[in-house]
Every structure is written in C-alpha cells, then in structure tokens.
C-alpha cells in the first residue's frame, strides 16, 4: 500500500470508530434540520421556500464539527511530526486528509439529504438539485476548512477560532449553493449559472486549500 493510501485508510478507520467524526456530523445535520419545522411551525410553503437554505446551513455547520480535530489530534499525539518527515509532499498529504474528511463527513450528509429534504417539504425535483449542489459544494467546504484547521492546530480550544476563521470564507459557497438549489425550484435565474460558479469555487478551493494549509502547518510547527 502506498503511503497516501495508508493515510486515507487510517483516517477513514478513525472516523468510523468510537469518538470519530463520521456519524457525529450526519447526526448533527439531521438534528438541526429536524428542529427547523418545530421552530417555524407547519407552514409547508414557507418550509419549501427556505428548505435548501436550511439544509445548506446545516451541512456547513456539520462540516465544521469534525474539522477542528483534523490536524489537532495528529498534533497532540505526535503523528504530525512523523507525517512531516514523510517522503510525500505535505501538500498532497494535506489533500489526502481533506479527501478522507470529505468521505467521512461530507458524503454521509449528501446521502442523508434527500431523506431529510422530505421534512422540509422538498419534492423529488428539489431533492435532486439539492443533492447535486451539495455534491459539488461540500468539497469546497472541506478544503476551505483545511486552512482554518491548519492555522488552529496548536491551540488548545481551536474549534472556536476555526469557526470564526472558516465561516466567513465559506460565504461564496453558501450563496451560490443555495442560489443554484433555489433556482431550480423557483427561478428566476437558471440553475446553470450559479451551479457553474459553485463548481468553480470547489475547484479553486481544491487547489488553494492544500497549499495554504500546508504552509500554515509548516509555520505553526516551528
């Protein structure tokens, strides 16, 4: 097994074990979305109108949950020192950790989203577009989050700083993710325009995220 495959398998294993982030994220997602109809009351038209926004917000927050442990756990037990000594470039190592994070927290959200869309009165068409926007948009959340996770790595309670650092950066993803989902439901813009911009945001974060995070890690561990 190559070093990077070994890292991916290990991070996935830790995520699905007790105390890992995989199920926590999707459960948090379910709970937050379930609370909304209780808070707003049974106004089906209203729920349908704000449904995509609620699901996107919940996905954003659920994504943050496991993020603060991404590098901090490795830093605390000394794994990060050894990872820095590996023959693989740190940028690639960071990207692999991002992929593992997305597979263990982003992907379960996407799988759960159609089911939970029912609670917000989304029909099949709404569900499909929502899943499509989440599928394209959540990698951006993860890879932007990598930067915050790397900056907060050495702090004891880095989770709070992480949220403050990362959430503003995810605003464009949120705007175009929700816009694309809403466009398919209500108009007036076409689905394609915001969706393509969302794809572009994701691709850009896939490139920028690992480099920025690796640079932050190198700085931090001096």
């Amino acid at each position, binding site marked *: *097994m*190559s*070093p990077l*495959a*070994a*890292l991916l*398998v*290990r991070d996935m*294993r*830790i995520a699905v*074990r*007790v*105390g*890992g982030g995989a199920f926590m994220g999707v459960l948090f997602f379910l709970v937050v979305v379930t609370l909304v109809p209780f808070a707003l009351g049974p106004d089906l038209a209203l729920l349908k109108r704000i449904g995509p926004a609620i699901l996107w917000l919940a996905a954003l927050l659920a994504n943050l949950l496991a993020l603060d442990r991404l590098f901090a756990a490795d830093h*605390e*037990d*000394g*794994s990060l*020192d*050894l*990872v*820095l*000594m*590996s*023959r693989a470039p740190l940028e690639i190592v960071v990207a692999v950790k991002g992929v593992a994070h997305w597979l263990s927290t982003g992907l379960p959200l996407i799988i759960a989203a159609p089911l939970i869309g029912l609670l917000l009165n989304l029909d099949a068409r709404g569900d499909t577009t929502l899943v499509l926007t989440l599928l394209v948009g959540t990698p951006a959340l993860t890879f932007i989050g990598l930067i915050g996770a790397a900056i907060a790595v050495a702090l004891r309670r880095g989770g709070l700083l992480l949220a403050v650092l990362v959430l503003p950066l995810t605003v464009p993803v949120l705007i175009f993710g929700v816009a694309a989902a809403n466009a398919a439901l209500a108009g007036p813009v076409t689905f394609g325009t915001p969706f393509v911009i969302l794809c572009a945001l994701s691709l850009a974060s896939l490139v920028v995220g690992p480099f920025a995070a690796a640079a932050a890690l190198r700085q931090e*561990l*001096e």
Partner: protein
Amino acid sequence: MRLTAVDLACHRGGRDVFGGVSFSVSSGEALAITGRNGAGKSSLLRTVVGLVRIAAGRLALEGGDPELTIAEQAHYLGHQDAQKPSLSVGENLRFWAGFFGGKAADIGGPLEAVGLDALIDLPAAYLSAGQRRRLSIARLLAVKRPIWLLDEPTSTLDAPSQQRLAGFMRMHLTEGGIIMAATHASLGIGDARELRLDDRAAVQG
C-alpha cells in the same frame, strides 16, 4: 555515511536554546546527547530531523541517498507515541509501516521483537505507557531507515525492555546505522560517545 553538524544554533520561542553545537557521527556510531533539563536535547534532535528550523550553522549528511532529505532517511522517536487510541496495535503499526514505505504485511516480526505480538488486536487505548513506547520502537524495526533519533528512549520502559532496546540499537549499529539519543541514563550499548549540551557551548567527548 556521516552526519555532521557545524556550529548549529536553535532559536525557539524568542530565546536561544543552544548555539555553537558541532558534532559528527559516522555509520556504526552512537552519540548520546546529555545535559540538564531544558538544555536543548530534544530541540537538537528536532533540528536534525527538520521539525525545527536551523537558526545558524550547517547540518549535512554524507553518503546518504542524495535524493532524500535527512528527515526522510531518519526515524524519530519522540516523547509522544503517535498512536491512535481507537486503532488496534496491529493497525497502528501497519499504518506507520505503510506510510514510511515498508511492507505493511511485515509487522509480525517487529511486534514479536518488542513483545506485543499477543496484543495485536487490542485497541491502543488500553496499552500502558511502556507498551505504547514499545509499539513506537516496533516502528523503527518495521521500516529500515539508517538514522535513528531517539528522545529519551528508555523512559517508561522496564528493565527487560531496556535491554531489548539496547539489543536493537547494537544491531542497528552493526548494520551500519547511526544513532543519536537524548538521554539521562546510560544507553546500555557500550562505547557511545557523549555530546554534552552546556549553558554556553557543546562539548563533544
């Protein structure tokens, strides 16, 4: 193979940890780094392995693989064990073996050598401090790298395990390896040279 440092200095957290450290270790030699607490023993090892930036001086490895950095040819055994509590003993070692480019299947031998083969399926959370240290040592055996940088390797180990570790170190030296170890106690491998980090400069004895 020869690891040489000339006038090495380290600067951390706004103060000089050490300066003017020079040493040279060749294949088959061990260098024990001694000094009071806070003299910079751990910082020196971390500097050699590239985890701390070199503030001044030079560090060079002759006769190694020119394609690789010193860190990529070294094993570092730090204070922290780099084990994940939710993974089993076998999974932890298999990961590091795979990550450092060894064969993940070959973990049976190293685990047996450190006496943990019976615990291969136990989650690492249940290991004692000494057992975790032994699991870390198994990593050095699972993947061959010529330079061993050990930070107080005998701490938390019981007497039989310390002897076993001394055996591994002697074997590594006879295979032409290099060992640098920060230590307060004797390493138990006979003629290790000593690098004493004092307040001012380092003295190689």
